[in-house]
């Protein structure tokens, strides 16, 4: 193990990724080649319970989806921040000399995240059932 250079441990990963994609691609092409192709209008039109499709699906949809997307961006980044902290958490007492340093760090951090969550919550961004929220 330790004989191999550091960078090597990533090669299998890369190969895995390539192979997985290749395999998926292969399946698609294979089915494309194997399957027969008899086209007609009904097949080629979008499925809408057998009716002729009305318009297309490029309309606007509820702004809540955007909301969720934005919230996700923010909270996800916050989640990412916890990982490095979690990794060195065990060593923090030895670095700072205070066993609770790391804890308070994360406590304040989480408090901020919590405040944000609370705000969004109370503002009603998160209830999808009714439209009381001012979006």
């Amino acid at each position, binding site marked *: 193990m330790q004989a191999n250079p*550091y960078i090597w441990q990533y090669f299998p990963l890369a190969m895995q990724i390539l192979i997985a994609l290749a395999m998926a691609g292969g399946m698609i092409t294979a089915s494309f080649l194997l399957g027969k192709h008899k086209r007609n209008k009904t097949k080629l039109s979008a499925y809408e319970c057998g009716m002729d499709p009305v318009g297309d699906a490029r309309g606007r949809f509820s702004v809540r989806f955007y909301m969720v997307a934005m919230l996700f961006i923010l909270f996800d980044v916050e989640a990412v921040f916890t990982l*490095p902290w979690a*990794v*060195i958490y065990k060593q923090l007492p030895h*670095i700072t000399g205070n066993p609770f340093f790391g804890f308070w760090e994360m406590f304040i951090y989480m408090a901020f995240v919590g*405040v944000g969550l*609370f*705000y969004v919550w109370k*503002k009603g961004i998160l209830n999808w059932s009714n439209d009381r929220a*001012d979006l």
Partner: protein
Amino acid sequence: MSNNLLALLPEIILTVAGVLIMLAEPMIAPGKSRKPLGWLAILGTIGSMGAAVQQHIVTDRAGNLPITAFYGTIQFDNFSVFFHLLIACIVLAVLLASLDYFEGPVSHAGEYFALLCFGATGMMLMTSSVELLLVFIGLEISSITTYILAGFRKGQATASESSLKYFLLGSFATAFTLYGIALAFGATGSTSLAVLAMTLHSSMTPTLALLAVAMMLIGFGFKVSAAPFHVWTPDVYQGAPAPVVALMSTAPKAAVFAVLLRLLFNGAPALRGEWLLLVTILAVASMCIGNLGALAQKDVKRLLAYSSIAHAGYLLVAFTCFQADAVSAACFYTAAYAAMNVGALLVITQLGGFDEHLRSIEDFTGVGLKRPFLTALLGFFLVSMIGIPFTGGFFGKFYVFSAAVHAGHTWLAVVGLLNSGVACFYYIRLLVALYSKPAAQKEVSVGKASPVAAVALIACALGTLALGIAPGKLLNLLQRSAPTLETGPSESELQPAAVPTSAVASITR
């Protein structure tokens, strides 16, 4: 009290205030008035002022030496204290003036107050940090809040436009600043100003560092709307709500100027010969473009936008001078400009109301007869912007240009003063319009100032006057604070920073 806590106390207080507001906001029923939250914000601002004063006392006891905290990333000294107080004052004035600003059931007033607090936090952080990472974070906190504030009048299409433009160009500028920081990091292996300074002195060919400084200048140039990076200013100011313009034309600029002072005089004095040229170009361009551009404007806020570009130019003139002079002159000018510009825009806020029905200069014609008090104040602020003596505006210009002449850049002073000659043309046009009979008999409804707002306005006026008549006290503080720029945090203070980084390093391996 430990230095670490004290160093961030003003910011902490403001943040807490903002958070409390955010917590309280959703609890208040939608229809209800948000004024209490405004008062809370005001309380927070005053608290942070108190904290800043406490810092001043401590530094005084330490014999005016800068005190660093958090592994030498934060440094508070008279310089930072001055800017803390300045920013706090600006925010306070804006808060007071916009307590009764909002109308309508869904006013988002609560968020407005919270955002003001957070923005102020960011700006303050910028002024007291001697580590580019913190500078960047502070910059972003203030910028992002102001992006949102710029678009605060949701109804108007212009509002969302202005906030979009501000956002796009602001982030564009941020990218430049960041690239500059990255290059600086590459040149010196650190983002701490002190290390930067030391390394630059030792390094022979600082091409990379030069590039870095240039990039940062571009970025910060955008933020202070110095020509040729001023394109966003007029549109944004026109679309944004007046009180927000009052804030973002002064406070963030003050903060960025503080950063520039620290960066150029404290971080990269070694490259003085090089950045001097760039700054001079910026200054001249801003003065000329700002004033000439303003001549053509009809919309008052646009006009003030261009004038703010020009003022940025005057301020940059100070950068071209000798250290002590330059710093105190720049600081003083910032203060003076803040006082008068905030005042003027707040008056416009009061007159125009939330929907800002007073836009063009013509709309303002004859306002002087309807609202003598407010108009007198506005006139006074305009007079100060022209640079008529016994006002802060005049003494600021006087001090900056005397510094320039003292540094031997007489031609800069000439250019600047000729520019102020051009400038007085449009100011006087507005001033005259205020006091002349309205030409057409179209009845414009003119808002009046609420008592609280009146207090803020009078405070601004008194500030402007005081800076013009008795600048001595402030000048003393500034002249004493200037030298602290030269002494950054020492080696020993920088050491502890190495510990956590090494720990992280051991993990990433």
